[in-house]
C-alpha cells in the first residue's frame, strides 16, 4: 500500500479481555516496528521485526504482550488480559531495511475500561 496501515483505528474493550492490533507495512519494507505512545511514558519502542523474525523481545512491557509477523508483511500485536495501564496509542512503523528511515502508521488508540 501507499502507507503503513493499522487497524482498528480505535478499540475500546473491558479490562481482562484480549485484543489484537494489526499492522500492514508499506509494500516491500522488510523491517517493521511497534511503538506505544501514552501520556505518562511518552513514545516507547516495543519490538521490531526483520522479515518474520523478532530477535529482541525485551522491549515488550510484560508477558501479556506478544507480536508476530507472517509472510514478511502483516504483523499483529496481541495483548492478553488487558489492564487499564495498557491504554495508549499503539504505533506501527516500517522501513525498507533495518535501520532505514521509519514511516509511521496512524496508530490504534486502545482504551481499556
Amino acid at each position, binding site marked *: 500500500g501507499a502507507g503503513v496501515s493499522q487497524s482498528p483505528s480505535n478499540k475500546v474493550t473491558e479490562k481482562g479481555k484480549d485484543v489484537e492490533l494489526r499492522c500492514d507495512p508499506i509494500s516491500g519494507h522488510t523491517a517493521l516496528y511497534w511503538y506505544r505512545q501514552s501520556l505518562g511514558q*511518552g*513514545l516507547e519502542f516495543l519490538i*521490531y521485526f526483520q522479515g518474520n523474525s523478532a530477535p529482541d523481545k525485551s522491549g515488550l512491557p510484560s508477558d501479556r504482550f506478544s507480536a508476530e509477523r507472517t509472510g514478511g508483511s502483516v504483523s499483529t500485536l496481541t495483548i492478553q488480559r488487558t489492564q487499564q495501564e495498557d491504554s495508549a496509542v499503539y*504505533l506501527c512503523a516500517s522501513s525498507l531495511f533495518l*535501520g532505514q*528511515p521509519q514511516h509511521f502508521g496512524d*496508530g490504534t488508540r486502545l482504551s481499556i475500561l
Partner: protein
Amino acid sequence: ELKVEQNPLFLSMQEGKNYTIYCNYSTTSDRLYWYRQDPGKSLESLFVLLSNGAVKQEGRLMASLDTKARLSTLHITAAVHDLSATYFCAVVDQAGTALIFGKGTTLSVSS
C-alpha cells in the same frame, strides 16, 4: 542506556518571532530524526541528520546536529500558526534498530 531529553516541553510562541528547541542525547548515535505530530495524528518525518555539523532546512524550520556535544537544535524562524504541533526528536539506538524518542515539545503559536 540511551536517553533523549528535549527542552522546553512546552513553548508558547508569538507570530513572527524566532525560537529554538533543544535535543540532548546521552550516548553516541549515528542518526537523529525530527518528527512532527498534530493532535490525533501520526508522526510526520521532518529531518534526518546523519553527521556532525549537518544542517537541514525546510521552510521556517532548520535542524542542526553536533555529535560531539550530542545536541541537536530545531530552529523556528518567524513562527506562524501552522507550526503549532508537537515536535519530537528521536535517536537511533546503538543496535541501529529502535528509535528512542524525547518527550516532545508542544508548540503553540498565537498572534
